[in-house]
């Protein structure tokens, strides 16, 4: 790739990037959210057309998406042959299609049931399907966009075994990721992107996680607010709660969060965390007891769908969820002045970058949107906060600010339940760590006695 440039209205996403990929290498492309990684890989794949620059590839390019582009209600073989169906007359040759899938899986050392419905499969297996679909095209270049985001540590290992074997057979592989540990462990070379440009090209054997991180951020990492001693008082008690359905249900969960502490729930996506969060939010039915003496302040996991009305202004969004509170609802009316004052306060405390408080939140960056969501949750000094992936998909600066504010709320006496798929985030913030696996709490660690390897093993379901 030579001189790749792509501009969207208002931003230059990729600005003059040169990049070479060689057969047999695993190349990591790292950078913060918004640095231009996804745009660059989409250009390489041919999904997005570059404004300028040239791309030369020997053979075909395959792309494994971060959010798998699979059809849940179709079978594995149907997903894999979609668009390239073997035919018998004008109908699909199903026998040939099944054999094709089985052979392909065997060749790559992957196990798969061609007749299973994709939606019934665990995330890790779904990824295998997505990978197989790309491999079916025998690409000479394979792009992997955040491939391990939803995988447990054990699945990550086996995933990279497959990838390494693939590279050994001559495929050029580019991995777009923000997980620096994996970059160090499995890649050969590293390109770091910032503001649409490649700011560093590193050889993996001669670099470290810290070096990469500094290059990504363009300086030192912003620090998170310090942890202060607190007196802990009972706040939330969850007793034997079962909620949700299917594989992602919570099954007899018992836990306690006291004022002045952050309890982190570690776990791979889809192990019952959402069911617990929804039960606390009273969004789904559950059995068992949830004792909480105040209304939970919630930072939901999907800010676009669950937290914000994207077409609304910051002012209108500032009171969403609290519109029926006595200070905001005056008779039948909504106190517009109060909403504006709250929006102003959130903007100040959380450094929300915006042209005015009346712009639609959809025009803001993900980081600024998330600051509004967290700022709104914390504005009334709540006794209990449920934060679900509070820094997912936002830049490092915004993430550090959000984490700091959560820590400060804890220091001031709030009880915080932190659910996160990023183990690092939990290790940074939590006073106590619970591990969830298949709907059950399988581990409980005090901050002082945390064993990272042990947590990783529990997340993957292996007994201690």
């Amino acid at each position, binding site marked *: 790739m030579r001189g790749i440039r792509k501009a969207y209205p208002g931003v230059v996403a990729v600005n003059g990037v040169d990049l070479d990929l060689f057969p047999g290498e695993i190349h990591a492309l790292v950078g913060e959210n918004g640095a231009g990684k996804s745009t660059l890989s989409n250009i390489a794949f041919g999904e997005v057309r570059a404004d300028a620059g040239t791309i030369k590839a020997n053979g075909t390019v395959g792309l494994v998406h971060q959010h798998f582009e699979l059809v849940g209600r*179709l079978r594995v073989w149907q997903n894999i042959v*979609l668009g390239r169906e073997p035919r018998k007359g004008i109908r699909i040759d199903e026998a040939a299609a099944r054999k094709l899938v089985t052979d392909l899986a065997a060749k790559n050392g992957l196990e798969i049931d061609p007749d299973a419905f994709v939606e019934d499969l665990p995330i890790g297996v779904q990824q295998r399907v997505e990978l197989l679909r790309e491999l079916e095209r025998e690409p000479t270049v394979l792009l992997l966009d955040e491939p391990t985001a939803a995988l447990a540590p054990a699945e990550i290992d086996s995933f990279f075994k497959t990838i390494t074997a693939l590279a050994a057979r001559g495929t050029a592989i580019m991995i777009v990721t923000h997980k620096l540990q994996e970059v160090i462990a499995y890649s050969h070379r590293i390109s770091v992107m910032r503001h649409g440009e490649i700011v560093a090209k590193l050889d993996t054997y001669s670099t470290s996680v810290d070096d990469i991180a500094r290059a990504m951020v363009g300086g030192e990492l912003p620090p998170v607010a310090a942890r202060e001693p607190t007196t802990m008082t009972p706040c939330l008690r969850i007793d034997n709660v079962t909620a949700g359905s299917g594989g992602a249900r919570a099954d007899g969960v018992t836990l306690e969060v006291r004022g002045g502490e952050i309890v982190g729930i570690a776990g791979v996506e889809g192990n019952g965390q959402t069911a617990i969060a929804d039960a606390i939010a009273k969004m789904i039915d559950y059995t068992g007891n949830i004792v909480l003496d105040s209304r939970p302040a919630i930072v939901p996991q999907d800010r676009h769908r669950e937290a914000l009305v994207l077409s609304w202004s910051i002012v209108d969004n500032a009171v969403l969820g609290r519109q029926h509170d006595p200070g905001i609802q005056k008779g039948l009316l909504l106190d517009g002045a109060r909403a504006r004052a709250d929006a102003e306060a959130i903007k100040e405390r959380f450094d929300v970058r915006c042209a005015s408080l009346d712009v639609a939140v959809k025009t803001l960056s993900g980081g600024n949107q998330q600051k509004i969501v967290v700022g709104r949750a914390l504005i009334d000094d709540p006794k209990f906060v449920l934060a679900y992936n509070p820094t997912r998909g936002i830049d490092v600066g915004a993430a550090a600010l959000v984490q700091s504010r959560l820590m400060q709320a804890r220091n001031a006496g709030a009880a915080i339940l932190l659910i996160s798929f990023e183990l690092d985030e939990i290790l940074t913030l939590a006073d106590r760590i619970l591990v969830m696996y298949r709907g059950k709490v399988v581990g409980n660690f005090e901050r002082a006695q945390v064993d990272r390897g042990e947590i990783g093993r529990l997340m993957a379901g292996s007994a201690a």
Partner: protein
Amino acid sequence: MTQSLIVTILILTIVKAVPIIYAALGGVISERSGVINIGLEGMMVAGAFTAVLVSYVTGSPILGLIAGVIAGAVIGWVLGIAATKFKVDQIVAGIGINLLCTGAAAYGVVLVFVQTGVNGQVPQLGGVNVALFDLHSGALAVLVFAFVCALGLSWLIYKTPWGLRVQACGENPLAVKSAGLDPLQTRLIAVTISGALAGLGGAFLSIGELNSYTDGMTAGRGFIALAAVIFGRWTPFGATGAAIFFSFFEALEYALQGQISWLPSDAMQALPYVAALVALAGVIGKVRAPAADGVPF
């Protein structure tokens, strides 16, 4: 109940069901591809009117039937373009289509038939004349043909490469795109076929079951077909069954007209709609629409 009454009701059920079956099959293919087709009613109107017009002009009901199918397909294509190229809200576009078609047909009736002093009597499609009740085999043949269509559609959706793409489009068009295909084109074709089927239904209504076009003759059958799609769980045979189920009530109303003194005719007339309403409410929790149904891509 006499035996002849039962036979009458059965034949009427078939005759009343066939237009709805075609429209419902059209609804199935459209919604499976991810486009909600509120415009089925308008496409039926287009088919019904054009079929009469062409039969009247050419004297050939077969040509009329073909013209009705084409007219429906054209309207379906318009909705498809609106839904794919312009990403118009599909429900709003469907409402627009319905108003456009009913208006155009009303205008056409005045223009062609009333102004020239002809009341729109046309040669009928051979074999089916309900008024006589003597063509049992004809009614049956029509039903068999409708079932063949359902079978064909079922085969198209579940057994062919294109059908696989249609299903994928309705569930996750991104998957289709990343497989190197154009989901918008697949949807456009599906909605055009949908229009052709609805047009066929309309044509059957105007030159098969009856022999003229009158304003409002589709009387919400396109909407009943939509309810049949949902009640039939977005499958060709399910929708066909649901269409027959709803039509049974319509047949009941025709067959029993004036025979039950205590039941007002208006109550009988409302039956198919009430049945559709109850069915709509009754399918709660048991069905799942295609995941990307109604979502522009």
